[in-house]
């Protein structure tokens, strides 16, 4: 009787698993996209691994020879990495109002020789210049609350903040002294709610003096000059030109979330030497569905006109996803878990 009962469980077992698997494969199939990637060979060579001991590091900026890392947990520590010598150096900086450090979200940005600690929710900005380790809150004017910060020169910086009148996020250029704020309304284009739909990443390339904003949830990026005049709007290789999600509120409208399955199309933005590098969240037609679990897929676009050049993979390390990456001349540095991985980068020449 016991074996009969065990057997009687089998159909229930397999039907239950089968139902979910059907849903899984159905949704995996619809996640494939109608575009193809080009893969030149041997883009990344010579993997070298450095153990950082903590997984809370991120890349804060770079100079000609050095990569700077910030740490989410200890925002007052700066870490320097010299790829040429595979050398790590840690040092601690000080704020003129140290009690402010207790705020959770300080982010380090390095635009050498300047470096900054910013906290957008409380509209805090501290800055200093290497080798000075004392940061000052040097703006004699209160800033708007901001969600992204990007240094561009010794006299000005860029912010992304929310404009309640227009009900959308906007980019502003701010001059230190005399304080001046120039808000540009036409860079970000609202499609749904003005917060989630315009969300994305921004960066400034000090070599070409170009500013790039790329959306998370649609295939578009915008390139401007340092005064935020639009040079062109480019598209990534997929065809998601409009955000696909809807938003809904609960808890008496106190909480608003995106209420449809939505993974970012574009996950990371890195600017380097006339190239716009975009880590993509999409699988191309000529790739396996599981590819995103093993690699960060990076698509490279030309900075001058936004055309697609090629793609390459940055492998995950030790089962850890690529959390951040940056390029310094012929070196590519990625962060996976608590490891820093350093490759020789062999960028194909522009054709």
């Amino acid at each position, binding site marked *: 009787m016991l074996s*009969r009962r065990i057997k*009687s469980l089998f159909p229930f077992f397999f039907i239950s698993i089968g139902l979910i698997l059907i849903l899984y494969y159905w949704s995996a199939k619809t996640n494939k996209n109608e575009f193809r990637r080009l893969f030149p060979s041997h883009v990344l060579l010579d993997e070298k691994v450095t153990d950082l001991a903590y997984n809370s590091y991120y890349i804060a900026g770079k100079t000609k020879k050095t990569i700077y890392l910030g740490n989410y947990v200890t925002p007052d520590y700066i870490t320097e990495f010299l790829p040429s010598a595979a050398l790590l150096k840690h040092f601690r900086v000080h704020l003129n109002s140290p009690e402010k450090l207790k705020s959770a979200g300080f982010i380090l940005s390095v635009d050498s020789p300047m470096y900054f600690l910013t906290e957008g929710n409380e509209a805090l900005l501290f800055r200093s210049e290497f080798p000075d380790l004392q940061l000052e809150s040097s703006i004699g004017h209160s800033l708007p609350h901001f969600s992204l910060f990007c240094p561009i020169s010794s006299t000005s910086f860029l912010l992304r903040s929310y404009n309640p009148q227009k009900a959308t996020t906007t980019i502003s250029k701010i001059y230190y002294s005399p304080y001046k704020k120039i808000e540009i309304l036409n860079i970000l284009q609202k499609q749904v709610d003005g917060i989630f739909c315009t969300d994305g990443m921004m960066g400034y390339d000090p070599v070409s003096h170009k500013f790039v904003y790329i959306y998370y949830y649609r295939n578009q990026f915008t390139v401007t000059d340092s005064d935020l005049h639009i040079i062109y709007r480019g598209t990534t290789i997929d065809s998601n030109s409009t955000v696909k999600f809807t938003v809904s509120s609960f808890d008496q409208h106190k909480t608003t979330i*995106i209420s449809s399955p939505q993974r970012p199309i574009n996950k990371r933005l890195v600017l380097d030497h006339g190239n716009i590098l975009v880590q993509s969240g999409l699988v191309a037609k000529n790739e396996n569905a599981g590819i995103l679990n093993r690699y960060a897929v990076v698509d490279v676009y030309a900075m001058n006109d936004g055309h697609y050049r090629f793609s390459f993979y940055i492998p995950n390390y030790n089962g850890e996803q690529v959390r951040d990456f940056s390029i310094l001349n012929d070196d590519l540095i990625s962060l996976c878990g608590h490891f820093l991985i350093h490759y020789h980068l062999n960028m194909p020449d522009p054709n």
Partner: protein
Amino acid sequence: MKEKAKKNIVEVISILFIILFVYAAASKWMAFDKFQAQLSQSPIIGPFTRWIVWIVPLAELFLSILLIVPKWQVMGLYGSFSLMTAFSTYIIAITQFSEYIPCSCGGILEHMSWNIHLLFNLCFVILASIAILIRPAQNHFTLLE
């Protein structure tokens, strides 16, 4: 094992399932908007949210009723076994969508990590199998004997 002891074990397991299902269904309904919004983020069942928001809590309540009524208890156990197997498979499948993993379980279950949640579900799969395997034979329900 004596028939009496087996019967008691089956009863305890049924009660555990009833508590679990009623609690899970109630916490989903008490925060229905939230449940619906979170479920709709799921990469696997997102497109079917409209139906699943009703099917899952109703199935949980329906199974509780089956487990309460002695005559239907066996069906309830098979149903519980199937539902927990499906939930476990769902957790394994959704963790394959690596970085984007929304959660839509109510109450205390919300605070579990995916691995703990999977372990929790598998325990209930095993409990249901034990109950099905050791339950004393019933005259009025011979379909699955």
